[in-house]
């Protein structure tokens, strides 16, 4: 093909970056290479590149392009087998290595080519090493400072890495080069905005608009893009501090400007609801309650009657709440929460709201007299219930407004329940449970201090009263509304079962399903109050009555699980699943309960019914990022002591979150092209908070715990049921170690055949299972078999403390209000010998929940460690000796523990975990005898908070560790547990 020119080519060594371009023919080929790469026709690209290289084997840019293509081919072929699984074999790994070598060689050949540097950057980017990629791009730009493609790529990386300043600079350069493009203007405006300069961003947007020709431009016509852009600008305006010449003492100038701007753009906006919501928010913050009400009615009439946020805003407007409270309602209320469930209402407030939400006549007459100012406004005089008779939310909110001790409340809730029971609404029980509100004093300032204006609010230490939901069975049992509902439902049941009517002279005969749902509701009420046996006997009646309803099996399963018999729970929900194999929900529930029952094989078969048929279901679940399944499976392995597999699954979840983070790459360009800038800002915020999400937290916390467990137990084959070895008393630890030693012996025997030391605990049967599993899914292979899966073992031989530290740091940074995160931060720091960090974690915990049991046990631990500590910097000694006593109320350890004992005794409901923690501390601080300690737990009579099967097991375990001294109390404890959890056979 290229014979003709071969004679001249030998020593030419063209290098584009050094001013020695390729001959015409090769140069064309080279363009083709790029074209083929971009259109993903890798094979053709490769062929062309090879043709060039045949003549000019050292041509840098071609080498680089070839490397890029090889890399792309390697990456696409492992798409189905994620990298963390070992890249699906060595071949892809080799290819990647080859790609890196090609690119490096190319770069060496032609260091002055921007193409080579660009490719080098792209390669780093594809292996997610963004910092290196940015460096390479910068090199490329040094050579070709006006290369748009490179600038664009670099901008993407910078926003991804949140190098906001750099991002803004890059976008400015692009804009300067190509000021005619809309996208470049928008991106630059956005880059200014994310750097916190709202005013500057508005300026950029204005400059852009000024470049347009008013008459023709689509920007001035009503369409989606112009609407989004206008609303985005409005949002940015609200974040500015307002015009300088404006009267702006209150820092609300930006809001005022934004509110005025809304009127200007009204004609452009297509997202009317968004427009109204923005308007509402501004009006409330400015205290313009009358006009806010009008906005609210526009929203309600547009169909937002079921949006509780709108109702929350309406209440704020009616009660003329201060801006801080308005903001709290608008920003933090979720689900069915409104102002009425945020804090207790004053009598006069309640009256206003009841009038607003009630039915027609009363409201109209009352208003006519005393509220003449309303005459001109468009706000209807009737209560909402009269205007929107079909709205369920309004009826539901009405319940939360009535004084709970009143007769009206009783009859309202009576009617509410009756209607739902007749309809057969399974969720009625949990719906009602959100009415069990308890008042709680909060010492902290109303958390608004951080909000938009930057003006921290004055009242730093005022106590505010807030509602919290009663969640513990003990609290629910005693709750007035719970009791009222129970009373009502009991009366329904007796009346329905004798006469098929509701009580109190109701004459309407009801179908059999009404009684059924009354039973069902009563059973869920039993569940809420922790009365599992009664709940089960009722749900059994339901099942006998209508054995074809899978809701009943699900509830029964839940009752059994809470009552301690997880195996029967799994069987029961499985029976429910069997009624309808097309019901994905019940299938997933079944899977979950099976995993909790330690039946991972059954669970896998179960969930496989809904995964894609080809291939390995677990791989499919991984690809679908099925987090709940992986978390449950990981818990299952952990309980079985198979830490390698367990870690593997937790890490899979962590990988998903990394992928979520990675996924935002796709949006940086897309969102701006589509002008969905408001959503894009939300996305950036979401990604910033990603690591604070609960599922990530669950996975990361377990990963930390396992690593800490392995730190405390460096002998890898040691296995016990719970990794939180560290919390055991010395006696327990000794016992557990004995067991572990026995297991190890047993494992050694088994290991002869299987080669694995980790699965020894489960003996022969497990090896069979594993062998079977490994047949089908080598790629997703489990970490336990040493020879076959080095990757999995890697998780177990990592630097555990380092890993734990890494994740703890992420958690405390992104979930700083989660007490468990700080508890783990403490656990990690104390093992690293970082006393100051540990102390900081303790203080953080205290600020979240000052008498949490996790905190108490760690304070005791810290105090003990402090006394046995060897050396430390003088400075940190100083800090510790002045600060730490504050945590101990300036008492000695013994006194501190004794104080806690008294506190625990004083409150009959003080939680079981707290009692356990205090009891343990009594022993370790020599503040009481073993029998005193066990009595403290026993004295709860299990009528305390946080009494679950789990905490009961833990207290039994503790009592066992006391040896003889605890024996008597232990027996009594067992009796108590059996009475409370009749299904917990293993206690």
């Amino acid at each position: 093909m290229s014979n003709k020119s071969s004679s001249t080519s030998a020593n030419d060594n063209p290098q584009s970056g050094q001013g020695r371009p390729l001959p015409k023919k090769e140069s064309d080929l080279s363009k083709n290479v790029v074209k083929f790469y971009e259109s993903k026709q890798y094979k053709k690209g490769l062929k062309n590149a090879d043709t060039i290289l045949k003549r000019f084997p050292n041509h840098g840019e071609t080498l680089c392009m070839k490397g890029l293509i090889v890399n792309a081919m390697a990456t696409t072929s492992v798409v189905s087998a994620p990298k963390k699984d070992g890249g699906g074999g060595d071949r892809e790994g080799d290819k990647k290595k080859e790609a890196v070598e090609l690119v490096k060689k190319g770069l060496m050949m032609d260091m002055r080519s921007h193409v080579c540097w660009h490719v080098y950057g792209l390669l780093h980017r594809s292996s997610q090493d963004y910092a290196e990629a940015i460096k390479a791009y910068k090199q490329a730009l040094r050579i070709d400072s006006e290369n748009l493609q490179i600038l664009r790529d670099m901008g993407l990386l910078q926003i991804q890495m949140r190098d906001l300043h750099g991002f803004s600079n890059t976008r400015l350069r692009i804009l300067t080069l190509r000021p005619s493009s809309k996208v470049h203007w928008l991106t630059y405006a956005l880059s200014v905005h994310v750097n916190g300069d709202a005013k500057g961003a508005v300026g950029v947007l204005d400059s852009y608009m000024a470049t347009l020709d008013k008459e023709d431009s689509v920007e001035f016509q009503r369409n989606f893009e112009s609407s989004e852009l206008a609303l985005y600008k409005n949002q940015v305006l609200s974040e500015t501090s307002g015009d300088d010449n404006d009267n702006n003492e209150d820092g609300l100038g930006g809001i005022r400007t934004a509110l005025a701007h809304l009127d200007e753009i009204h004609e452009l906006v297509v997202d009317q609801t968004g427009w109204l919501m923005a308007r509402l928010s501004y009006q409330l913050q400015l205290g313009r309650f009358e006009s806010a009400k009008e906005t609210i009615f526009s929203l309600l009439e547009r169909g937002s009657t079921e949006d509780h946020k709108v109702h929350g805003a309406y209440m704020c407007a009616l009660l003329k709440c201060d801006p801080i409270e308005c903001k709290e309602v608008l920003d933090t209320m979720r689900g069915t929460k409104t102002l009425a469930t945020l804090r207790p209402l004053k009598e006069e407030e309640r009256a206003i709201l009841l009038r607003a939400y009630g039915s027609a006549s009363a409201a109209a007459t009352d208003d006519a007299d005393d509220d003449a100012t309303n005459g001109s406004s468009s706000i209807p005089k009737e209560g909402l219930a009269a205007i929107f008779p079909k709205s369920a939310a309004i009826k539901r909110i009405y319940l939360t407004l009535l004084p709970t001790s009143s007769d009206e409340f009783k009859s309202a809730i009576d009617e509410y329940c009756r209607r739902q029971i007749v309809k057969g609404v399974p969720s009625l029980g949990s719906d009602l449970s959100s009415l069990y509100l308890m008042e709680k004093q909060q010492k902290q300032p109303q958390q608004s201090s951080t909000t938009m204006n930057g003006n921290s609010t004055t009242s730093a230490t005022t106590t505010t009263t807030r509602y919290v939901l009663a969640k513990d069975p003990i609290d629910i049992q005693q709750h007035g509304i719970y009791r009222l509902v129970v009373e009502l439902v009991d009366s329904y049941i007796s009346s329905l079962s004798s006469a098929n009517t509701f009580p109190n002279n109701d004459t309407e005969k009801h179908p059999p399903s009404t009684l059924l749902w009354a039973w069902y509701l009563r059973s869920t009420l039993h569940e809420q109050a922790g009365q599992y046996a009664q709940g089960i006997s009722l749900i059994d009646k339901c099942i006998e009555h209508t054995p074809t309803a899978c809701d009943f099996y699900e509830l029964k399963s839940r009752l059994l699980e809470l009552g301690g018999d997880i195996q029967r729970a799994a069987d029961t929900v499985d029976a429910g699943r069997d009624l309808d194999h097309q019901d994905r929900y019940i299938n997933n529930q079944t899977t979950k309960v099976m995993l909790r029952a330690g039946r991972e094989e059954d669970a896998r078969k179960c969930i496989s019914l809904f995964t894609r048929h080809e291939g390995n279901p677990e791989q499919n679940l991984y690809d679908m990022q099925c987090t709940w399944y992986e978390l449950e499976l990981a818990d299952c392995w952990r309980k079985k002591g198979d830490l390698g597999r367990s870690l593997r699954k937790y890490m899979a979840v962590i990988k998903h979150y990394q992928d979520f983070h990675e996924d935002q790459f796709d949006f940086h360009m897309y969102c701006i092209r589509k002008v969905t800038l408001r959503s894009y800002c939300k996305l950036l915020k979401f990604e910033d908070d990603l690591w604070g999400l609960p599922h990530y937290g669950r996975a990361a916390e377990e990963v930390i715990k396992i690593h800490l467990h392995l730190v405390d137990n460096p002998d890898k084959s040691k296995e016990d049921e719970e990794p939180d070895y560290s919390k055991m008393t010395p006696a327990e630890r000794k016992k557990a170690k004995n067991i572990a030693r026995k297991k190890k012996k047993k494992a050694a025997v088994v290991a002869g055949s299987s080669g694995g030391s980790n699965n020894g605990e489960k003996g022969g049967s497990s090896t069979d299972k594993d062998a079977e599993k490994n047949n089908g899914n080598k790629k997703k292979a489990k970490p336990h078999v040493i020879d076959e899966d080095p990757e999995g073992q890697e998780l177990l031989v990592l630097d555990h403390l380092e890993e734990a530290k890494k994740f703890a740091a992420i958690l405390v940074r992104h979930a700083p209000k989660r007490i468990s995160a700080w508890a783990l931060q403490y656990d990690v720091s104390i093992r690293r010998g970082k006393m100051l960090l540990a102390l900081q974690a303790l203080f953080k915990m205290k600020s979240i929940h000052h008498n949490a049991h996790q905190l108490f046990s760690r304070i005791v631990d810290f105090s003990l460690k402090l006394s046995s500590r060897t050396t430390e910097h003088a400075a940190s000694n100083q800090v510790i000796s002045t600060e730490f006593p504050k945590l101990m109320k300036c008492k000695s350890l013994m006194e501190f523990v004794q104080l806690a004992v008294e506190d625990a005794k004083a409150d009959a409901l003080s939680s079981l975990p707290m009692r356990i923690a205090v009891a343990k501390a009594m022993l370790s601080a020599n503040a009481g005898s073993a029998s005193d300690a066990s009595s403290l737990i026993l004295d709860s009579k299990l009528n305390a908070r946080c009494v679950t099967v789990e905490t009961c097991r833990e207290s039994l375990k503790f009592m066992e560790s006391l040896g003889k001294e605890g024996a008597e109390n232990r027996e009594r404890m067992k009796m108590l547990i059996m009475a409370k959890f009749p299904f917990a056979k293993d206690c």
Partner: protein
Amino acid sequence: MAKKHDENLCKFAYWNGFAVGAICTRVEANPDCQGRNRIYIMTLGVLAAYRNHGIGSKLVASVLDYFEAEKDGKLSTVDEIMLHVQTSNSDAMEFYGTKFGFEKGELVENYYKRIDPPHCYILRKKLR
């Protein structure tokens, strides 16, 4: 000839979304009459709690309606509908007799193997 699993011949009854009753019938050859067929009610059941609400009647009626609709079509070879009923089950005989005009036919001894009494009657209704 009707399909083997004709959904018009087997039906569930739903109450508020839950299956509370079912009927299952089939078209089979009539041994007494060469080349002719009959509908045989294999089972009819309604959960105890939902009886006396007309569910069973609706189920039987739906099969009879189906016959009426198809008597010159798919079911042109069918002449009668019949079932077995345990001799002690007077409720059922009452149900089929008064509501649908089934007639009590011959006694079949030891028809049931696991329930007592083991004998049954044949109930049948001529359809044309």
